[in-house]
Every structure is written in C-alpha cells, then in structure tokens.
C-alpha cells in the first residue's frame, strides 16, 4: 500500500465516529466602517509604528517625490510593469548626472541575477492592496510589482501605493487578491523579536521600507 493510501485510510479510520462538519460563524468584521481618509490615517500610523517611512502626496507629484527620495541612491531596480510616469522625473538612463540613480529594469526578457540584485541599492515597486488596520502591504507579482526576489534582495524598498487601494480590514484585501499569485505581504521592514522578545528592525529582508502613498 502506498503511503498516500495508508495515511488516507488511517484518517478514515480515525474519523470512524463521523464527526459533524460545523457551520462556520463569520461574525467578524468583513467590510470597512471607515472613510478613505480614516483608512489612510490608520495605515500611516501603523506603518510608522513598524518604523517604515511614509510619504503622502497627490498622484500628480509621484514622479517628483520619487526623484527626491532616490536622490543620492546609486542604483535602483524596477519591475518592467512599473508605471513609466513615476520615473519620469529621474534623469534618463545614460546621462551621467551626479546624484541620480542608474535604473535597471527586471523583465521576463532580462531577469537580473542574484549578484546583480545584491549590488543594487534600492527597489521601487507598486503594490496590489494595503490593509490599514494591520499596516500590511500586499504584493502579488503582477508586472508593476515584479518577481518576489527584486523586492527582497536590495536593502531598501520604496513601495508606491495608490490611496484607492487601501482597505481597512484583512478580509477586504483577501477578497481582492488572487490566491494562486505568488504573494508577499509586507508589514514594515524586516524585524526580529528573537532576542528577549523585544522587536528590533533590520534583519535579512530590506532594512529600510519607504512607502509613498498617492492620493
């Protein structure tokens, strides 16, 4: 008998008393009771609590703010589907403008190697959705967010989030995500509580998380 058959048989025998399948109560909050304003405020509060830096600007100022945030950064990687206009205030690639970063684009045609990513200072991605109550930003691997590896290896992650994509509670975000997409849920920079259960930020994942919220 295969292990599979054996285990399934064991389970069948263990459940010989045929326990009832209970109805699942779902009385927890599944939709937001907050205004968009309140959600934004709550998200900022949570992210700051996690020691992320948060910047809220009108959507029209996205490119300018990004250029400001990336000034002094030597190199940046972006996913191929990142909205072009967000990078429009950066000097075009090839110009040797001191203080503006070299931008590498990670795409299905040209995937950066681990070593290349390790040499990059920062990554800029979009986000799929964010949960204000828990301060969580979800990436789902779509072209504006890229492969999981690009938002992991560089030491600084600049994440651009549209205010319209902020929900209050986790069930709202889960409903918007595609389960089978490769996902990373991010709540602040990497951290550990392994030493005396005190939280300290900055371990293996990006040690700096900047969140740019576009209104």
């Amino acid at each position, binding site marked *: 008998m295969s292990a599979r058959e054996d285990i399934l048989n064991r389970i069948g025998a*263990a459940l010989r008393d045929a326990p009832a399948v209970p109805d699942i109560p779902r009385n927890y909050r599944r939709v937001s009771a907050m205004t968009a304003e309140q959600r934004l405020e709550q998200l900022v509060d949570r992210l700051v609590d996690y020691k992320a830096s948060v910047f809220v600007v009108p959507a029209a100022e996205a490119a300018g703010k990004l250029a400001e945030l990336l000034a002094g950064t030597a190199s940046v990687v972006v996913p191929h589907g990142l909205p072009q206009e967000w990078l429009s205030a950066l000097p075009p690639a090839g110009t040797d403008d001191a203080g503006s970063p070299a931008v590498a684009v990670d795409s299905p045609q040209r995937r950066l190697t681990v070593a290349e990513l390790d040499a990059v200072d920062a990554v800029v991605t979009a986000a799929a959705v964010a949960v204000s109550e828990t301060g969580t930003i979800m990436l789902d691997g779509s072209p504006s967010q890229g492969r999981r590896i690009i938002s992991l290896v560089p030491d600084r992650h600049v994440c651009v989030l549209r205010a319209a994509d902020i929900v209050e509670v986790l069930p709202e975000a889960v409903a918007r995500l595609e389960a089978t997409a490769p996902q990373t849920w991010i709540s602040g920079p*990497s951290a550990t509580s*392994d030493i005396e*259960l005190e939280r300290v930020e900055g371990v293996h994942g990006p040690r700096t998380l900047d969140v740019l919220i576009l209104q």
Partner: protein
Amino acid sequence: MSGTFLGMPALPAYGHGNLNATEPFPKAAHRELGNAQLRANLGHATHTIRDKRLKVVAELPDWEDMRDSGSAIKNATMAQLPALLEQFEANFTARGGTIHWARDAQEANEIVTSLVRATGETEVVKVKSMATQEIGLNEYLEDQGIAAFETDLAELIVQLDHDKPSHILVPAIHKNRSQIREIFLREMEDVDPALTDEPARLAEAARRHLRKKFLTAKVAVSGANFGLADTGTLTVVESEGNGRMCLTLPDTLITVMGIEKLLPSWSDLEVFMQLLPRSSTGERMNPYTSLWTGVTPGDGPQNVHLVLLDNGRTAALADEMGRTALNCIRCSACMNVCPVYERTGGHAYGSTYPGPIGAILSPLMTGIKSEKNNSLPYASSLCGACFDACPVKINIPEILVHLRGEDVDSRRATIKVPTQMDLMMKGAEWAFSDGAHLGLLEKGLPLGRLAAGRDKVIKKLPGLAGKWTRSRDLPAPPGQSFRQWWARDHKAPDGVVPGTGTTNGTGTGSPTESEGGQA
C-alpha cells in the same frame, strides 16, 4: 488494536522522533528550576510577550468572533480531512508542485534526503519549521552527509550553541542577550570581535553571517503555517526575511507540512492571519508572509515539493476527546501565559512541542505509554490560562484531564501494586461517596488537632503528603466540622436586621465564636 489484515490500517499509528519526554517531567522540572538565570530570562520574556499580546488583542472588537470562526474552521477541516487533502493535492500538483506522503518521521527524512540528493547539492538552507524539528531532519541529513543551515535568528542561536529549542516561536527564549553575544563570538567565524549585546547589533551579525549562504543556496527546506485546500496554496509566516530568502532564491524548495495544517478555503486565511500574529508575537501583523501555489514560472523555485506528514497525527485524530489538539496553529500563546512553562522552560518537556499544547499533543501523537510522556499531562495546575489565550479555543485543561485518565487506566491495566496515589484516591472515593462516611471521618478531627500541637500548624506529614509540607504548613483541623455544628448548634434565624448589630447571637450572627477558622 491489531488490525494488520489487508485493507485495514493498524490504528493508532503512533508518531516517532522528537516527541518524547525522556525523563519524568517533575524530575526535569526540578533541574530546570534550579537554573536561576533561565528563570530570570523566561520570566522577562514571557511577561514581555504577554503584555504585547493583551494589548493587540484588546484592539480588536471582534476578537472573540474570530476565535469562534477559527475554532469552527479547524473542526470542519478535521471532519473532512481526507477530501481536503485530496483537493489540496490536486491543486498544488496542477500548478507544477510535487506531493509526497510520509507515514512517519523516518519516511519523511528519507524523502527529503532523496530530493536533496537528486539536486546534487550537499547543503540546504532552512526556514524555522516545527515539523522538521519533530522528525529530527537536521540530524538525519547530517548523517547522510548533507549540511542543514538554520536561518531564523533564534534557530541559528540554538544551532550555533549546539543546544535544543525550548519554545516553538522563539527557540532561544531561554537565552538572554549577553549569552547570545557570547555564542556569536565563540561560534561565528566571521564575527566582529567588538560585537555588543545590543539586539540590533546581534541581528546585524546574523545578517552578515547568513547573507552569502542565502545568495548562493540551491536548495531550501521549509515548513508551512497553512495549506489552503481550494487553491493548493502554501503559506509561511515570518519576520526576518530569512523565510523569503529561502522561499524565493533557491532552485529547489522542499516543504514539510503536517496533514492537519490545511484550511478548507483561501478566504479562511482572513481569519487565521489575524489570529496568528496577534497571538504569537503580539503584533498586528508579522513583517512578512509568503504565499505560493506550486511553481510560478520565472519567479522563485522551479522545483517545488511538499511532504505531507502523518507521524502520529492520525493517532491524535482517532482520540475523540483529544483530537482538537490538532487544531493548534503553533502560535505559542499557551506557553507564554503558562505559569508552569514560565518557571521550567521548554526543555523540561523533552518533546519538540513544549508547554500546555505540548503536554497534550506529544502524548496524543505518541500514545500515553511512550517513554515518559505519561508525565506530561500532569505538568499543569489546570489554571486555564492556556484555554483563554488559545486563538482556536483548544480546551487544553479538559484534554489534560482526559489524558490523565488515559494514563491512570493504562497503569491500572498493567501495574498490580497500587501506588500511594492510587490508595489515596481509593480511600477518598469511600470518604466522598457518602455524606455519612465523611461525617464519620470528621469525628477524628480532634486527633489532627492534637497532632498539630500548640502551634496549631502541621509542619511535616509522612509519605506522599510530605510533598505538601516540603514548602507549606497545614493548619490544625477545627474542633468540629461544619456538619457537626449544623446538626448540634445551628438554630433557625429569628428576624435579624442587617447591619444594625441586633443579632440574637445564637448562631446566625457570627461565624466566629468558636475555633476552626479559615487557615
């Protein structure tokens, strides 16, 4: 049961591996209690985490609703486990993942070894996983010439110190910062000799130490927090990014997951990803959660395996009174609030699973007669703090009592000479099964009073009761029992006016006139 004939599984099929107390709990506890440093470390850590958990749980108006949902979802999972496993398998496989089934620890270790061998590699990086701890995978791989590197900070500390984990969430909870610094200085080849004991500096040292390992690793081994049946999705919940490194960078990913870790549906994650972080680290959300479904072309490992592990889980499932122990999501809230764990630490339990949940899960998975696991269900004062803290409402005290019953029954069946405890219980059965019997015994109270002497306290008792008087006095018994007083002296009240002090003094006013007070 001896159902070895064809087609019928031999039940219960108990688990093996690191699931046993190897010495009786009281003996191990006695040793650990003597370690003042350990007690100080544990006291500090458990109190820190308790306060954090209470704070974030109090934030949610629907915490109890979520616990009700979590509990029901897990009960529903267990009731439909075969169908959900098959559904999960179909979905995970359809997306390019490969599923393996392991009856026990040995089989799981063999499967992982052969998968690593097939890659030609001799090193693996590991994400913290209780399942691989349970089956002793690292030791097995080492015997096979494969080096396993733990990457979670606490696991790294334990591995570098050649120690054993003592907590399921924070395996190095028994070490304080200066001890961790010493371990790093002693065991990390590339460490900065000026390393301080500041947690941020220690975390940075771990980052430097493991960075190259992550970037060059070809094979990773992980556990999983949840498997979602209706989509075939796996989940790893973590903080440091070591999980993301292992789950994303290598070509080959081998995950070992207990069969009970399933949830029926993707949307059930909305409940458990609220329950788990708040219960375990006391955070609103853990820094990183990774989700993958089989293989994603061009993103992450392309050679993806899952080992579904029984190793005694079906034995636990077969116990109708104990099966809800399988609902455990390994948050560790129960051990963080447990007054026994707080004082003994995790090593006293022997098993990979310490604390209140370990005291039920270990004997359920191995059978009550395995090694010294029959001592684990007694490692509790039944105070109930664990039940209150459990995010999926496992009634741990009730299962502890059930397993004590299993232990008593199993010893009854094999041991012919009754223990002192057996005799005491037998005697108490007679005394307490009839008011007249108790009344008769109470006639002897003055004798106890005599024994107590002028100090009216008993400082030393013989036999089993001597364990009481090791650190406590016993008051002298009263001159007469309540029963005797009621029969002889109690008179019906005659209209006492409350608070006016005009009691008639004949039995209703004051309970204090004769001796025998609270002691």
